[in-house]
C-alpha cells in the first residue's frame, strides 16, 4: 500500500532523515520506533507532505505522491494523527469531528461515523458541544484519532499516540488501535513506547539519528535484545 524509497528530510544543514526506505502492506500494522530526535516525526510529515523531502520517492497504491499536495494526499486516503494530538482547542468536540470529515460528500455516512465514535467514546458524546481544549490529554488523543478516522482513510499514520499520557490511558489507546487493525485498517504507528507499539505490530522498523537500524518482525527485535536497549531503552 505504501512504499517509501530512499527518503531524505533536511532542515537547512540538519539532515533529520537519511536514505530511509520502508513499506506498509495492505492491512498491516507497522511500528516505527526510535528515541527522541530520531527523525520519526520528520518521516511522518514528509509522508503527509507537510515538510518537503529533500530526496526519495513516496508511493501510495502504485502512485508516486511525492509531489502531491498535503490536501490531495488526504483525499487519496492517507492521513495522520499528528504528534501532540493538535486538536482544534478553540472548536467544540463536534466541530473537530466535522472538520475531520471535510473531504467527504456523503452526509449520511458522516453522520453514521460520527455516531459510531460518540458511542465508542462516551466522553466525546458528553462533551460534544464543549471546547475541545477542555478535554484531558487522553480524551484529546481519542478525539484526534476519531477526527482522523472521520475522513475514512485507507492508511492511518499515528505519531506517538502515547505521548504525555498516563500508562492506563496508553493501554486503552492501543486497545483501540488494535481494534482498528482488526477491522482491516492499515496503520503505521510511530512510538517511543516499544512495549505498547509491539502489541499489535506485524513488522517493526527502528531508526535513530535519521537512519534505519532494524527492519523485521517484532520477534527479531526481542532476539536482538540489545537493539531495544540501545535505541529505545525499554
Amino acid at each position: 500500500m505504501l512504499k517509501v524509497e530512499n527518503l531524505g528530510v533536511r532542515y537547512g544543514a540538519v539532515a533529520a532523515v537519511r536514505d530511509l526506505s520502508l513499506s506498509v502492506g495492505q492491512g498491516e500494522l507497522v511500528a516505527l520506533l526510535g528515541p527522541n530526535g530520531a527523525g520519526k516525526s520528520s518521516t511522518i510529515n514528509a509522508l503527509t507532505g507537510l515538510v518537503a523531502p529533500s530526496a526519495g520517492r513516496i508511493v501510495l497504491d502504485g502512485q508516486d505522491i511525492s509531489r502531491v499536495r498535503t490536501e490531495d494526499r488526504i483525499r487519496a486516503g492517507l492521513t495522520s494523527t499528528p504528534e501532540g494530538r493538535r486538536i482544534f482547542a478553540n472548536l467544540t468536540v463536534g466541530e473537530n469531528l466535522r472538520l475531520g470529515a471535510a473531504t467527504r460528500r456523503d452526509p449520511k455516512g458522516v453522520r453514521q461515523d460520527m455516531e459510531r465514535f460518540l458511542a465508542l467514546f462516551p466522553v466525546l458524546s458528553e462533551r460534544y458541544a464543549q471546547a475541545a481544549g477542555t478535554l484531558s490529554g487522553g480524551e484529546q488523543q481519542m478525539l484526534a484519532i476519531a477526527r482522523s478516522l472521520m475522513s475514512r482513510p485507507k492508511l492511518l499514520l499515528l505519531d506517538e499516540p502515547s505521548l504525555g499520557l498516563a500508562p492506563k490511558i496508553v493501554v486503552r489507546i492501543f486497545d483501540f488501535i488494535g481494534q482498528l487493525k482488526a477491522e482491516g485498517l492499515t496503520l503505521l504507528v510511530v512510538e517511543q513506547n516499544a512495549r505498547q507499539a509491539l502489541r499489535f505490530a506485524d513488522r517493526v522498523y527502528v531508526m535513530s539519528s535519521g537512519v534505519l537500524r532494524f527492519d523485521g518482525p517484532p520477534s527479531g527485535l526481542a532476539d536482538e535484545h540489545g537493539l531495544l536497549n540501545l535505541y529505545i531503552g525499554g
Partner: protein
Amino acid sequence: MDYALQQLLNALAFGAEYSLVALGLAVVFSIMGLVNFAHGEIIGVSAYSVFLAAALGLTSPIVAVLLAIAAAALAAIAFERVAFRPVRYAPTTTGLLTAFGVSIVVQNLFMLLISPKPQSVSILNGLNQMWFFGPFAVSSLQVMELIVSGLTILALVLFLNRSTLGLAIRAASRDFATVRLMGIRANRVIATAFAVSGALAGIAAVFIMARRGSVSPDLGFSLVLKAFVACVIGGFGSLPGAAVGGMLLGFIEVGLLVVLPQEYGGFKDALTYVIIVALLVYRPEGLLGQRVELGDKEI
C-alpha cells in the same frame, strides 16, 4: 435629550463602521498573521468601481451597493493571489511591507488612472437623509450603519460557526498545518478569509460614499489606521475583540468631543490615544485577546 440621543447615535454609527473594518483586518490576521494595511485600498477599489459604474450610466443604488461589495471581495481575493500568496511563508515583516507596497501602488493607480482630486459620487446620496421620529431628527445613514453592521456581524458569526469553511477559518487561526491534514485546501481557506474581509470593507465603502458623496485615492487609509487601533484595543486577531474594540473607539472619540470644551476639541485624537495606552498598560493583550497558547494541554 435630543443632543444626548444624537451623540449616542453618532458613537454607535462610528463604532459600527470601525468594527466592520476592524473585523476585516482581524479575519485575515487571525489566520495569516498578516496586518493587511492594504485593506483601505480594498475600500478604495470598491468605491472607485461604483464611481466608474455611475460614470458609465449606472443609476440604481441597489446595484451600486451590490457592486461595491462584490468589487471589494474580488479585490481582496486578487490582492491575496497576486501579492500575498508569494510571501505567505515569509517572515511577518515581509507581509507587512508587502501590504504597504500594495497600498501605495493602488493609491497611485487611482491618482494616475482617475485623478488625485476627490471625485463626486452621488448615486448613494439617497441613503443619507433625515428621518423624523416625533420631535427627534436622526440621520438615516447612521441608523442603517448600525442595523447593517449588526446584521453583518450576525451573519459572520453564523458563517464562522456553521459552515465547514467557517470552522476551518477558526481552526486555521490556531493551527493551519492541521487544517490541511483534514484535507481542507489552504488556498481555499485563505481566499475565503480574504473574500469575507473584502465584503466587510465593501459595506464600509458604501457608508463612506453615502456620507461623503465623493471618492478620493486615500479614501480608506485613515479608516484602516483607526481599525488597526480598534484591533489593538480588542486584542489583535480576536474577532469579538475587533468588534468590541471598534465600538469602544467610536464611543471614546464621540465621548471626548462631548465632554471636551470647544476650544480643546483639537486634543481629541491625542486624548483618545492616551486612553488607549492606559488601557493597554492595564491589559497588554487587549480587552479580549489571549496570550498565545502554544501546544495543547497535557493531562
